[in-house]
């Protein structure tokens, strides 16, 4: 944790005025400003703030790029089409075989949207005018890897605007708490591409207040999310088969039946995940050891074998790195069931990690929580636990 001790400090002006100033600065400082546009609510705010600042600086039309991830809501497509039709927006619509996580399946943990080899399975045809090949793109790149090339070096210094907000997760909060000045601007990728998060301090209410006050158009998928009971903070347009959205996969079936008909055959495991993603089969909720397995450690090893290479190796490496993290913190062996009070680790946790096939380590934050909880339960302070590590008599 860099610059620990920095805390949120509120100022007098509101987030809209602050963001206006940030966008204006970006248009003055960078050769090219481009909005990474997902069709979601946050990038809608960015697009409109960019339109305002670009107009004020004589830099219309606003450049934007959209990664079309194939299995996307019809409302998103309609909305992005409306944006593309605007005279003051120059939108690059990208339909490239980007690598995506498929958390539905053990045997096929990735899928590639618009994969030419799977054309008969595509959820929809490629929209007219979309970019379907690029000299800088090769199949298997991820969106973060490929994005800096959409507006390449020939555009000079490029500011890449994203609608990332600190409210969304601890990880995102940490990413803007590094320093006091220009905390929302990152260093250059590849020497010229500067990611920026100029609406980092916006709340979800702010994000909806802006279109409310200004009458902006927006993605109608959100109206549907509301109808099916999604809480405001959980409404996201994102690829459907990844770790986090998996629990809501069934929503596609009730919201977009025609799309779902295609999705269910698009990636292996989709139908199974739609039915069971919120159950133990997908590592959701409290796990119990299956009959005949005597320990979480054994279960962990047994499940690992179920993955084909190279994924088995990747997950094994993930497990090894988490175990190393434990060893760096304590000399205690990894407990079976209850979390270690310093590392938060247990074989039960590792078994869950293996079951999810979590190669990104998205659940790691839970370790800290588990450690803190266990520490409180055992009645130790952090200092006492650290002292035990150096006290020969309490070492294992």
């Amino acid at each position, binding site marked *: 944790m860099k*610059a620990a*001790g*920095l*805390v*949120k*400090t*509120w*100022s*007098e*002006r*509101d*987030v*809209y*005025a*602050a963001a206006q100033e940030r966008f204006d600065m970006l248009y003055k400082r960078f050769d090219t400003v481009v909005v990474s546009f997902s069709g979601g*609510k946050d990038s809608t705010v960015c697009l409109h703030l960019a339109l305002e600042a670009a107009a004020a600086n004589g830099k219309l039309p606003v450049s934007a790029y959209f990664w079309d991830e194939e299995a996307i809501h019809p409302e998103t497509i309609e909305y992005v089409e409306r944006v593309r039709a605007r005279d003051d927006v120059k939108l690059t619509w990208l339909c490239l075989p980007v690598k995506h996580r498929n958390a539905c399946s053990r045997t096929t943990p990735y899928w590639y949207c618009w994969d030419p080899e799977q054309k008969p399975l595509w959820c929809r045809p490629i929209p007219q005018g979309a970019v379907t090949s690029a000299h800088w793109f090769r199949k298997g790149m991820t969106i973060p890897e490929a994005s800096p090339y959409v507006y390449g070096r020939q555009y000079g210094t490029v500011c890449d605007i994203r609608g990332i907000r600190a409210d969304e997760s601890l990880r995102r909060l940490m990413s*803007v*708490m*590094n*320093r*006091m000045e220009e*905390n929302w601007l990152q260093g250059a990728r590849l020497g010229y591409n500067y990611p920026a998060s100029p609406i980092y*301090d*916006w*709340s*979800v*209410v*702010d*994000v*909806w*207040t*802006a*279109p*409310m*006050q200004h009458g*902006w158009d*927006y993605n*109608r998928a*959100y*109206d*549907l*999310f*509301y*109808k*099916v*009971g999604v809480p*405001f903070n959980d*409404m996201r347009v994102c690829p459907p088969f990844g770790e986090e959205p998996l629990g809501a996969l069934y929503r596609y*079936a*009730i*919201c977009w*039946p025609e799309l779902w008909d295609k999705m269910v055959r698009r990636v292996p495991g989709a139908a199974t995940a739609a039915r069971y993603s919120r159950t133990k089969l997908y590592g959701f909720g409290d796990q119990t050891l299956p009959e005949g397995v005597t320990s979480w450690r054994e279960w962990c090893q047994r499940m690992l074998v179920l993955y084909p290479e190279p994924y088995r190796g990747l997950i094994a490496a993930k497990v090894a790195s988490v175990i190393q993290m434990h060893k760096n913190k304590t000399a205690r062996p990894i407990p079976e069931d209850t979390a270690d009070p310093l590392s938060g680790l247990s074989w039960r946790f590792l078994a869950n990690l293996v079951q999810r096939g979590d190669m990104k380590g998205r659940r790691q934050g839970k370790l800290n929580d588990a450690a803190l909880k266990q520490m409180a339960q055992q009645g130790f302070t952090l200092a006492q636990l650290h002292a035990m590590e150096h006290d020969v008599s309490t070492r294992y």
Partner: protein
Amino acid sequence: MTSAPATESPQITDFSFQPVSRVEWVHRSELKANDYNPNHVAPPELDLLLVSILADGWTQPIVTLPDLTIVDGFHRWTLAGDPRMEALYGGFVPVVRIQLDPVHSRMSTIRHNRARGIHGILPMAKIVTQMIQEGIAPEAILEGLGMEDEELSRLATQVGMPELAGTMGFTKEWTPGKKPV
């Protein structure tokens, strides 16, 4: 389904071989549950099932093995003991018996439960909105469709997200700063 037969289809008039042509009325005490049914019906849906049978009557028979072990219809059979049902049907339930081995009776149970669709949310919203426009009381919709207020109000809302979520003013800007001492 079309009501008129297609020109190519054979002219079949005898349907007596079909299970539904052999429905018999059996007293519920003669039926017994199977020991494997994985289907669980939560209380709101069980209430709705009762509403459904009371409103429409018996529209589908319970499927059993020859010895009256239930293959499909366990929850309807349970509800047949409800006093309101007893009053109407005297504890009798419509039954069709089919001959199945133990494996296929399990398969049949699961198929009866799984081979069904899911309601699209927009068509549901449209129906609910139409009912309200036609002057049906919300209470009647809640009862008739087995919904909570929450579901009905979400389905029926015509207001968009900006109006729903963006009614407050903007919050204040914040930046990372030193902890005040």
